[in-house]
Structure formats: structure tokens, C-alpha cells
């Protein structure tokens, strides 16, 4: 099966070949965009990402067999334009009441995540854009550090320092919530999250 670089090369002569790249990556880009900016804005960003990628297929750096990082990079830059949508979306998520379902209560990790969500999401809003982009590409898109460097066109060292900063701030927020929760006597203790 041809890799993305081969497909993009082929799409220069036969533009229809680009649809194979679309089929491979659209769902993941849509998921990422919707997690960041919400349902409607996310759909617009995912569609525009593919259109921009098609337009720029001529300039794709063929040394990278997978276009995954490239596409996430385009989507992330588009999301920068939609910074108001992202802030609104994160603010809305942060304010949603926590209402664990029975299956959430049965899963301690899932329950942990739910109870920590407001602090986490609030902390995301306060991150510098570059730090937020790097961390969310790791957390939501599951890119490697190398892929994040490729997507954001920054050195690996910059990726590492951005993610380190983001993690540090997020942990402060989570530990702040733990302290508050413990002092309110929920009867549940949360251990310190381990280092990656």
C-alpha cells in the first residue's frame, strides 16, 4: 500500500489520488478539531485542513512518509485563527456540571478524570498557545515528540520544553483541586500523578 508521500506525489498528476489521503486521515483530524474548538467549528477546520493540504500537496516534503504530522500542523494553525472558538469551547466544558454515570463510578480512573476535568480544562485555557498546541497534539492526537516538532515546525527541544511547561502548570492545577477536595472531606484521596 503506498504511503502518504507516494500518494501526494501521485496526486500532482492525478488530483483524484488525494482522496486516499483524505480517507486515511479525515476522521482523526475531525476528532482532534472538535475536541479543541467544538462541534461546528471543528468540522469547518477539518474540512479546510483537507482543502489546504490538497492545495499545498505540491510542496509536501516527501522525506516524511506519513502526512499525519503535516495535517495536524495545518489543523493546529487553523485552530490558532479560531482562538475565540477554542476559548469559548473550553470555558463551556469547564463549567459543565460533573454528573458521573454508574459506569464512571465503577471505573476509578474514569471517575478521577471526570472530577479533575474542570481544573484541567481551566488550566488549558491559561497555557501559552504554543504550549497548549504541543501538549494537545501529544494528548489528543497522540503524536510523538518528533511528529509534534514536524507539525509545529519547531525544534525537538522546543517541543520538550513546551510540554514540560504545560504539564507543570496542569499538575499545579490538579494538585490545587486535590487539596481543595481533600479539605472538603470527600473521603477520597488522590495520589500524586507520576512523571511520564
Amino acid at each position, binding site marked *: 500500500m503506498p504511503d502518504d508521500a507516494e500518494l501526494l506525489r501521485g496526486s500532482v498528476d492525478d488530483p*483524484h489520488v488525494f482522496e486516499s489521503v*483524505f480517507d486515511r486521515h479525515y476522521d482523526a483530524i475531525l476528532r482532534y478539531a472538535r475536541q479543541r474548538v467544538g462541534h461546528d467549528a471543528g468540522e469547518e477546520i477539518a474540512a479546510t485542513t483537507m482543502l489546504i493540504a490538497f492545495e499545498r500537496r505540491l510542496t509536501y516534503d516527501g522525506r516524511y512518509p506519513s502526512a499525519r504530522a503535516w495535517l495536524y500542523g495545518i489543523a493546529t*494553525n487553523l485552530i490558532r485563527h479560531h482562538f475565540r472558538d477554542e476559548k469559548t469551547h473550553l470555558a463551556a466544558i469547564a463549567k459543565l456540571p460533573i454528573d458521573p454515570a454508574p459506569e464512571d463510578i465503577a471505573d476509578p480512573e474514569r471517575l478521577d478524570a471526570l472530577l479533575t476535568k474542570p481544573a484541567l480544562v481551566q488550566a488549558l485555557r491559561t497555557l501559552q498557545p504554543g504550549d497548549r498546541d504541543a501538549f494537545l497534539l501529544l494528548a489528543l492526537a497522540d503524536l510523538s515528540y518528533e511528529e509534534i516538532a514536524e507539525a509545529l515546525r*519547531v525544534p525537538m527541544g522546543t517541543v520538550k520544553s513546551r510540554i514540560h511547561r504545560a504539564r507543570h502548570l496542569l499538575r499545579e492545577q*490538579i494538585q490545587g483541586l486535590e487539596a481543595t477536595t481533600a479539605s472538603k472531606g470527600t473521603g477520597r484521596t488522590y495520589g500524586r500523578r507520576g512523571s511520564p
Partner: protein
Amino acid sequence: MDDADLLRRALGEPGTDPAARERARARLRAEIEATTSGTSRRAGKQLILVGIAAIAITVALVAAIVPATRESATARELRGLGELASAQPTVAPHLGQVLVWTAETHHLEGFTDVANGIAYELTIRSSLERRTDAQGGILEKETIRSVEFASKGDRAAWEQAGSPELPTSGDVRREQFPPGDAGWFDLDAISTDPDVLLEGLRDGEVAPLSPGEDEVFLLIGQLLGEPSLTLEQREALFEVAASLEGVEALGDVTDPLGRFGRGFALETADRRAVIIFDPADAMPLATELFDLRSGTPQLFTWAAFEGAELV
């Protein structure tokens, strides 16, 4: 469970959306059809114009036309930025005011031990501040953030030289330039005639530079970052950038400080020079220089312009 897992679980994972997928596919197909129609007309015209060697000549012509089209679009975008830049207000200090310009840099600095001639290079990360008064006098302050050897070979050379004292984090270097002396470049040598300007850039009259069109391109970006240029000088620099052979539009990129901009690159065999512009006002956000010799682009020097303000 680490914080990335925590976030994933907290935000949940939206499922696939076949309807959204088909809407996006329809838009993509419309774009593909528009592109396909355009290509067909161009190919048809080529076949009418050539004879027996039509196929070979068409391939050569198409190969020439496609890159030329890309360069033309790039040149158009650069000229558009030049127009935007020339519409921006110039910032100059009046009496009692000082223009404060700041930048972050990551650059190579060469050192030569005078006793034995041994040379080595350091990579220095620093913060620059330049204060210009109303008379044109400049006070430049560089605060060093970090220092590293450019390579193991440079460290070895330094040790061979007797491990002389090196600049260190926290060091501050100051330099003062009288009115009329802009420091690292000659403001008066920046002609508003693009052809004369290009000659001046290549010949090192504007500022010293190493050989290579990538150096010229990088210098253009660095000059555009200077607040003391006139609008006509800026426009001429953009025109020169647009006219250089091989300049490529990179589209939306992120600069070393994480800011979004429009990137342009000029590549030689060994290096890629990049200028990143703020699309809002066409001011350069950053310049970058990549080493291509290893096969993977290695960013080895950059400058990020933070802006200028009157105080």
C-alpha cells in the same frame, strides 16, 4: 495514568461522523474537479503548439510551468506583503522619546584564540534590546541566556586552546553607536531601487554576509525586522525577496517563539533560510537558518523579533 491520559479521558473522544465526512469529501471533490479542468486546458494548449517531439517537450514545459506557477504565486504573496508593509506607520522617536526594540536570538559565534589561532564556535541564546534616541544614537544590550559548543569538535578545539574563559548565562554585553551608525548594517546603503539594492546586498555593502542566495534572503528578513527603515526601503526589500530565484512559500508556520505566521524559504544545497511574517502587518516575526547536510533539517540559528515601542 498520566496527565495526557487524564485529559483524553476527561474530554472524551468524539466518534466518527459519516455525515461530516461526506460533506468534507464533497467540498474536496469540487476542488479536485476545478483543478482537473484547469490542468486539462493547459495540457491541450501545449499539444497544439509542439510537433513530433510533443510528449518530451510537453513534459519539460509542464515541469517548467508548474514550478514557475508556484514561484509566481509566491512572488505575488511577497509583493502583497510588501504593499501591506508599506502601509504601516513608521515608528520614530521624537525628542525625549526612545524607541525600544527587542528580539530573541539563537546564533553561532566564532572565537579565535589569539595566542595559538585555534578557532571554535559557540551557540548562544540571548535577548537583545536596542534603544534608539531621537538623534539616532543607539544603545544595544545583549543578555546571554545560554551558551553551548556548536559541536563536539568545537569543544575539543576549545580545550586544545587551553579552555579559555567563555561567555556565560547572565552575562550582559553592551555596545553604543553614534547617530548615523545603525550598528550591524548601513542604513544608507539600502537603496529603494530593487535592482541596485540586490547588488548592494550581494556585494556586502549593506551588511557583511557569507556567499549564497540563502544569506541574501536571510539578510532581507533581518533588515525588515529593523524599525529604522523607511516605507520605501521596506517595499524595495520585499521586491528583492519576490525576485529571488527559488523562493518558496511555506504557508502557515510557527516561529521559534510559538507565534503563527506566513513562512517563505530559499534553499541551497546545504541550507534553508526562512523568513516568517506576521500576516496582520507584514512585519517579520523571525528568521531561521537550517542546516540540511544531514538529510534532516537542523535549525541552527534564528532570530525572533518581538517588536518596537516608543517609551
